[in-house]
């Protein structure tokens, strides 16, 4: 079992839920991304999702779109993101998931990507526009390298499709908690409860819910249903707000502590 599985295992024993935190790599700069990840880990984030910026992020709302643009302007590339993982791994054992659109990976080379990502210490990979139908072209390589290929389940996913996705899930099942793009609506608890219940009946793989979860209260509510919650836009917005300020790390740390407290 890798770092992701171990982490969920340990949290289960402690009766805690995982806080999975997304940030866009290179926003506001590569150096600050590394410091931010170490701050997140220190403050209680259990898993970090490092977003590879893409020029056309069609699954993302305005906050992460803007972050992606800032990161690209700062010169961020997938090679650069892999370097960031290497540097973080020297100082922290926090499980790392790379979150990307497929094109940057395709341009990098699928096999080379899987090998390099594993070699620098990434643990999982999540590709938002690579559904199971198209996943094999990447997954043959990430499976071989020993990276967890994390599958997404949407509120619109149902029936046989849900069973098949869940069956092949590795690391954790990422349940998309709204029918929409990132950071744009508040999740509806009743729907989430029903869907997560369905997933649970099909698998023992941990389930984390994300998209639209914006504060500790929501995280706490959803944490009672899932094994983990993912936050993204709320942190990315904070990074944007404080990116020119000395208070950036402090603000991020406070935000994570507050949300993690709701998951204990």
């Amino acid at each position, binding site marked *: 079992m890798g770092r992701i599985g171990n982490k969920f295992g340990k949290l289960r024993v402690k009766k805690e839920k995982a806080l999975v935190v997304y940030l866009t790599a290179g926003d506001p700069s590569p150096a600050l991304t590394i410091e931010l990840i170490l701050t997140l880990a220190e403050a209680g984030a259990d898993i970090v999702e490092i977003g590879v910026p*893409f*020029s*056309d*992020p*069609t*699954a*993302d*709302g305005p906050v992460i*779109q803007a972050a992606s643009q800032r990161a*690209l302007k700062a010169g961020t*590339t*997938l*090679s650069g993101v892999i370097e960031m993982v290497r540097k973080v791994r020297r100082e922290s054992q926090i499980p790392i998931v790379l979150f990307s*659109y*497929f*094109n*940057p*990976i*395709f*341009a*990098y080379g699928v096999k080379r990507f899987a090998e390099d990502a594993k070699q620098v210490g990434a643990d999982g990979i999540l590709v*938002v*526009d*690579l*559904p199971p*139908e*198209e996943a094999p072209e990447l997954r043959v390589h990430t499976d071989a390298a020993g990276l967890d290929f994390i599958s*997404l*389940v*949407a*509120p*619109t*996913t*149902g029936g046989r*499709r849900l069973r098949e*996705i869940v069956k092949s899930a590795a690391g954790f099942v990422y349940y*998309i908690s*709204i*029918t*929409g*793009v990132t950071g*744009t*609506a508040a999740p509806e608890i009743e729907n989430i409860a029903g869907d997560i219940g369905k997933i649970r009946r099909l698998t023992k793989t941990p389930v984390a819910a994300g998209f639209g979860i914006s504060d500790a209260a929501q995280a706490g509510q959803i944490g009672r249903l899932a094994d983990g919650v993912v936050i993204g836009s709320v942190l990315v917005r904070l990074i944007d707000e404080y990116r020119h300020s000395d208070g950036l790390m402090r603000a991020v740390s406070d935000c994570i502590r507050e949300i993690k407290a709701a998951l204990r």
Partner: protein
Amino acid sequence: MKTVPDKRGHFGVFGGRYAAETLMPALLDLEQAYGKAQKDSSFKKDFDLYQSRYAGRPTSLYFAERMTRQLGGAKIYLKREDLNHTGSHKINNTLGQALLARKMGKKKVIAETGAGQHGVATATVAALFGMECKIFMGEEDIRRQAPNVFRMKILGAEVVPVQSGTATLKDAMNEAMRYWVSSVRDTFYIIGTTAGPHPYPLMVRNFQSVIGRETKRQMARQEGRLPDVLVACVGGGSNALGMFHAFRRDMGVALVGVEAAGRGMHTGQHCASINAGKAGVLHGNKTYLLQDAHGQIRDAYSIAAGLDYPGVGPEHAYFAATGRASYVTVTDDEAVEAFGYLSRHEGIIPALESAHAVAQAMKIAPKMKKDQIIVICLSGRGDKDAQTIIESM
């Protein structure tokens, strides 16, 4: 020659269904509904009826005699898609998709548009079938294609301005996809070109294939033979595939797609995805894309808003890779010249998009023999471009 796409929407290594999970169930439903409609004779009957009585098909295949004489080479025919209701070939596809939306019980439709031709054609069918309609359009395109924006509004559609990126077609498509992710349960996305996730490239090509079928029939009647060369502009590529499809197995017919070279291929300001792009994944399909070494999509540019897109339909990528069609480029200046030429010599004002195809035909016709035949797909009319032409003079 293989039949493409395969069951999962692949045209060789291109195409596919690279979509967010939230959209996948809707895409699978759509594929199923379209499959059923293809076998349903009443669907076909409705489609044909609207095509003829509403859109005005068949469009004529016109022998451009003055142009032919002046250029002094091959005979030039124009397939007059500009004569369709709404002024372009786009209505062929929107009628098909709206009928399908109606069959699927969807009352809301959305679309992206560049030149506004697809937006107008979508707004038109939405009015016809009593559907709520939102059109996503880049702000730059709203400015340069203002007449079409007015038309969409008159038809009762809401035009949603898109500011991100270069505020052109790619950005409009991004925003339409984001909106669709949040509204997918009750909204039908009418994609305007032969791109996007499967089954769109297949479905749009089939709805447009009436162009080539008619051309083949008309050519047989008028000339008693097949043409030698078909020329069509390629942005996403729906008018070109519509023209090429019926001729794909007629190996004696050369298929020529014309990409926009914008300010010149050497300037980097163009949208020639096949000539200057690399394979990649955007907007649900694998195809040739303008991108940097790191897989970030580059800004496209063309004077013709409908070609101003950094990708191309996957079937064109396949035709280019297999050599079945060839893809050439025409600059803004050449297109503008052809726009003026056709207007003054034939009394037909072409869309700036279609003018790219006209320009290519003007290049090759003089080098061909007098008994050879070129058909230009005149995909749309150019009233919408008056402002752009005035600015370029």
